[in-house]
């Protein structure tokens, strides 16, 4: 018996990265802006998508992929707004992976403008998986506290956009919006920050305008 050392130097998530890259190419060739939404449970991802559905009505077409451990609830909420939605139930897994998106992709209409992927509510594991998105958006809601960015750095370091959500609740909470913003920007100075409330509508016009600009960038390259 002989011993042999094999130097591999291969990304353990290589197959996820390859699948994600193929999804990104496919979506961008169709001029679709894909957005991966990350947050802890209850930060307002689904409520934001409902509000975006209403604001995009008549202006753009969107579809939604919902990731949850169990139930169709979120997809049903989105469908009730007249938006096509696919529910992925992971059955225990704490995050979505690119191959799960790849399975749903053939069913997604090809003529949409925006594909929103709502990840499993979890600020840790989803940050490790590229799903083929163009924009990674992390939500931090006022009730969660302004000290979260440094506690969950990977989500904030890898995000493109930070939404400080539930701004309508701020009068009742000790949430320091400037502190949360400064802490997140210290981790990632390139973050685009929006202060929003899906209930009052605060900040949503700016966010929608930003999404349209990001989509135009893709369309001009495709």
């Amino acid at each position: 018996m002989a011993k042999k050392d094999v130097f591999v130097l291969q990304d353990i998530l290589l197959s996820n990265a390859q699948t994600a890259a193929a999804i990104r190419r496919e979506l961008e060739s169709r001029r679709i802006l894909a957005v991966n939404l990350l947050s802890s449970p209850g930060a307002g991802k689904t409520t934001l998508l409902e509000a975006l559905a209403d604001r995009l009505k008549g202006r753009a077409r969107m579809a939604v992929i919902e990731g949850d451990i169990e139930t169709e609830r979120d997809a049903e909420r989105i469908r009730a707004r007249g938006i096509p939605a696919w529910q992925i139930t992971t059955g225990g897994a704490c995050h979505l992976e690119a191959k799960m998106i790849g399975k749903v992709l053939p069913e997604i209409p090809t003529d949409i403008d925006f594909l929103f992927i709502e990840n499993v509510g979890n600020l840790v594991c989803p940050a490790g998986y590229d799903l083929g998105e163009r924009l990674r958006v992390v939500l931090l809601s006022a009730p969660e506290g302004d000290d979260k960015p440094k506690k969950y750095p990977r989500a904030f370091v890898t995000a493109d956009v930070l939404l400080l959500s539930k701004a309508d609740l701020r009068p009742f909470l000790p949430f320091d919006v400037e502190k949360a913003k400064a802490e997140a920007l210290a981790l990632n100075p390139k973050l685009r920050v929006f202060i929003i409330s899906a209930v009052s509508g605060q900040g949503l016009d700016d966010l929608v305008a930003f999404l349209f600009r990001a989509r135009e960038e893709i369309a001009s390259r495709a």
Partner: protein
Amino acid sequence: MHELSLVASMFEALLEQARHHKARRITGVKVQVGALAGVVPELLESAFDSYKKGTIADGAVLTIVKPPFTIRCRACGTETVRTDFALACPACASADLEIVHGMELVLEKIEMEIDDPLPAP
């Protein structure tokens, strides 16, 4: 807590390499887990040890190296290790930085036992 799914991906590569090199056994595996890889080394070890049972890597020892979070400034070239994960250059305060280490999740090396090569005729 997705260490088990990482180990499953890792075993795909391990088994493929073992086939390719006609290994009898895998005796050791070395991985790099960056400080901001989002993976807990102890949990990866436990997941590896339960996953390996009954496989070609049953007796394999997992070694984990942990590259620190290291950033390089595109403006002044300074390379810094940051334990607070902040993307800011301490030398020139530029915000234009690239992460050079700390995100990796890499299968570095596999130690295996193979049949002795046939003696030269």
